[in-house]
Structures are given as structure tokens and as C-alpha cells.
């Protein structure tokens, strides 16, 4: 009987520990019931939320928060939509008050068309948020030097985009992720661009600490099934990384013995 694999260490973000290494979003789902079912199917323990004006002219409707089981899932308010450090800091404080969570996904967008992060404003916002007691998870480009600078500013995790937000292209430059892993000691989480399960598995096989994704699940034809696929891929990729893969080689290496064939002369 095969022995069960030894338990993995938890994902540590600030003073919180998570067994799941898959962080999901709460946007773009067909409805809130599907979102909740997808979160359950993935057994995720952390989900991102956005901070926006309450529509005061609309009658009070169904609330996102009523569809997140806070006994199992922590909230990660983001600063999506912010384009300056000042806006991001303001939004982070609002998110903390509304979500009662010290975690923040710092996201400062530098270009509306590509949604690429603004590295200068992102870096500027990091230290003040850390000083204000936030556990800052930073959405960033995959530049290893920038990642090191962010970790130096007190980021609790560096979260490079694998490819542009919502593009589903997977990790386009795995070498930069590898370099980033060498340069920073805080968790590296691939955030954005993940399209399907194999993207998650390949990313995790690089040795990153986790994956954050939204569109790949929320906009799949069957979001609940895709959530499960992403969770399995996350675990599979993690196990493969911990197991130590064989080196790639040009020539074949037979798996069966070369001696003792019955038809041998």
C-alpha cells in the first residue's frame, strides 16, 4: 500500500496560515450561487474582493458577503482600479474597514488597455501600508529586481502577473518567475493570466507558493468544475515541485531491463 505523502507546510501570509494554495476571485461569475459553489469545489481559503461605492439609488439587493463562508474563507480586499499610490492607500483603508481584514492586495494599474501594473506607484504605496499594519500582497510585473524591492519594502508576498489580467495565456516567462524565486524570500504567488489547469500546474512546478486567479474559473463554461480542476492542478503542481522532477535529456532511457529477454540468443 502506498504511503500517503507527508503533509505540506502551510502557505504563510503575514501571521495567517492557509492549507490551500489557490486564491480565487469573486468577480465575473454568472451569479453568486455559482461563485459560492466554485469556492467550495476548490476548497479555497482566501478570496479577493473589490471596494466600490454603494449604489444608494438601488434597493438593497443580495450582498456578495452573504455568499462567502467567512468561517472557512478569509477576505482579501484589493485596490483594483487605483492608478496612484495615494488612491491605493485610501482604498486599502476602506477595504479594511468594510472587510475587517488586515490583508490587502495592492494593485496599482499603470495602463488602462493592458492593465499592466505601475511599478513606481506600487512601490510607493507598499511601505505606508505596511506601516499602517496591513499584510500587503503586491500585484506586480514579473521583474525580479522590482520583486526584491517590494519585499524590501515589507511586502508579505510578491504576486507577479503570469500574463495580462484575464488574458488566459498562462505564465509567459517562467524564467523571470524562477529568478524572482531566487531573489525574494517572501512567498511568490502567480496572480493573473492563468487560463486553465495546466497553467496552474506548470506555475506551481516552478516552486511558487500559490496561484491567484479569477477569470479562468469565473468565465469558464462550468465554473464549479473548473474550480475543482484548478485546485487539483495546484496540488499536483505543488507535489511535483516538492518531489523533484527528473532532468530533461535528449536521448531515451529504457524503463525495462535490457537483460533477460526470453527471445535472447
Amino acid at each position, binding site marked *: 500500500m502506498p504511503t500517503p505523502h507527508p503533509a505540506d507546510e502551510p502557505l504563510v501570509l503575514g501571521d495567517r496560515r492557509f492549507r490551500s494554495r489557490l486564491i480565487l*476571485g*469573486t*468577480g*465575473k*461569475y454568472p451569479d453568486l450561487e455559482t*461563485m459560492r459553489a466554485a469556492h467550495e469545489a476548490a476548497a479555497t481559503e482566501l478570496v*479577493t*474582493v*473589490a*471596494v*466600490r*461605492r*454603494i449604489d*444608494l439609488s438601488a434597493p*438593497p439587493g443580495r*450582498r*456578495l*458577503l452573504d455568499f462567502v463562508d467567512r468561517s472557512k474563507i478569509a*477576505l482579501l*480586499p*484589493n485596490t*483594483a482600479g487605483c492608478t496612484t499610490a495615494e488612491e491605493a492607500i*485610501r482604498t486599502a*483603508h*476602506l*477595504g*479594511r*474597514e*468594510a*472587510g*475587517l481584514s488586515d490583508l490587502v492586495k495592492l494593485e496599482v494599474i499603470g495602463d488602462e488597455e493592458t492593465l499592466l501594473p505601475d511599478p513606481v506607484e506600487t512601490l510607493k504605496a507598499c511601505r505606508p501600508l505596511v506601516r499602517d499594519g496591513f499584510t500587503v500582497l503586491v500585484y506586480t510585473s514579473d521583474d525580479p529586481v522590482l520583486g526584491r524591492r517590494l519585499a524590501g519594502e515589507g511586502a508579505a508576498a510578491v504576486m507577479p502577473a503570469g500574463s495580462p*489580467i*484575464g488574458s488566459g495565456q498562462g505564465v509567459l516567462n517562467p524564467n523571470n518567475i524562477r529568478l524572482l524565486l531566487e531573489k525574494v524570500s517572501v512567498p511568490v504567488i502567480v496572480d*493573473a493570466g492563468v487560463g486553465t489547469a495546466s497553467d496552474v500546474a506548470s506555475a506551481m512546478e516552478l516552486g511558487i507558493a500559490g496561484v*491567484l*486567479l*479569477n*477569470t479562468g474559473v469565473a468565465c469558464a463554461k462550468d465554473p464549479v468544475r473548473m474550480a475543482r480542476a484548478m485546485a487539483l492542478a495546484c496540488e499536483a503542481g505543488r507535489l511535483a515541485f516538492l518531489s523533484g522532477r527528473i532532468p530533461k535529456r535528449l536521448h531515451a532511457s529504457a524503463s525495462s531491463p535490457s537483460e533477460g529477454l526470453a527471445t535472447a540468443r
Partner: protein
Amino acid sequence: MFRPLMSRRVVRIMLNGRERQVGDGSLLSDLLAGLDLPADGYAVEVNGRLVPRSEARSRLLRAGDQVEVVTLVGGG
């Protein structure tokens, strides 16, 4: 401080980007109480600064104040 209730001047503030009239020096908590807000999951700032829920009862509204009431919505 004595403030006769009847003589309170009406002033304009901005609430979530829309103009609104309130009594000068009225309480932020009174404004919020009239908005049918949920018990939790929202946050308020005045003029770009967060006002913690515990301080809404002591925050007076003045002409031109910019009040923002936000909540958590779906996002990635």
C-alpha cells in the same frame, strides 16, 4: 455647545458623487442611518479620510463635505 435645532442652516454636501442637502453641523451617523445600510461590510470616508464606525457619531457635516460610502463587491 448649544445649537438651536430649528435654526440649523441647510448646506450642500456630496454623497457618493451626488449632491445632497443636510443640516449644517448634523451628524454623519444621522446621514448614514437614513441610507438603509447593512449591519456590516461597508466603510465611510469624509474628504478622503476614513471615518471609523465608532467615530461617525461625533463627526459633524459641513458645507462641501465629500462623503463616500463603499462596500465590498466582486473582484479579482
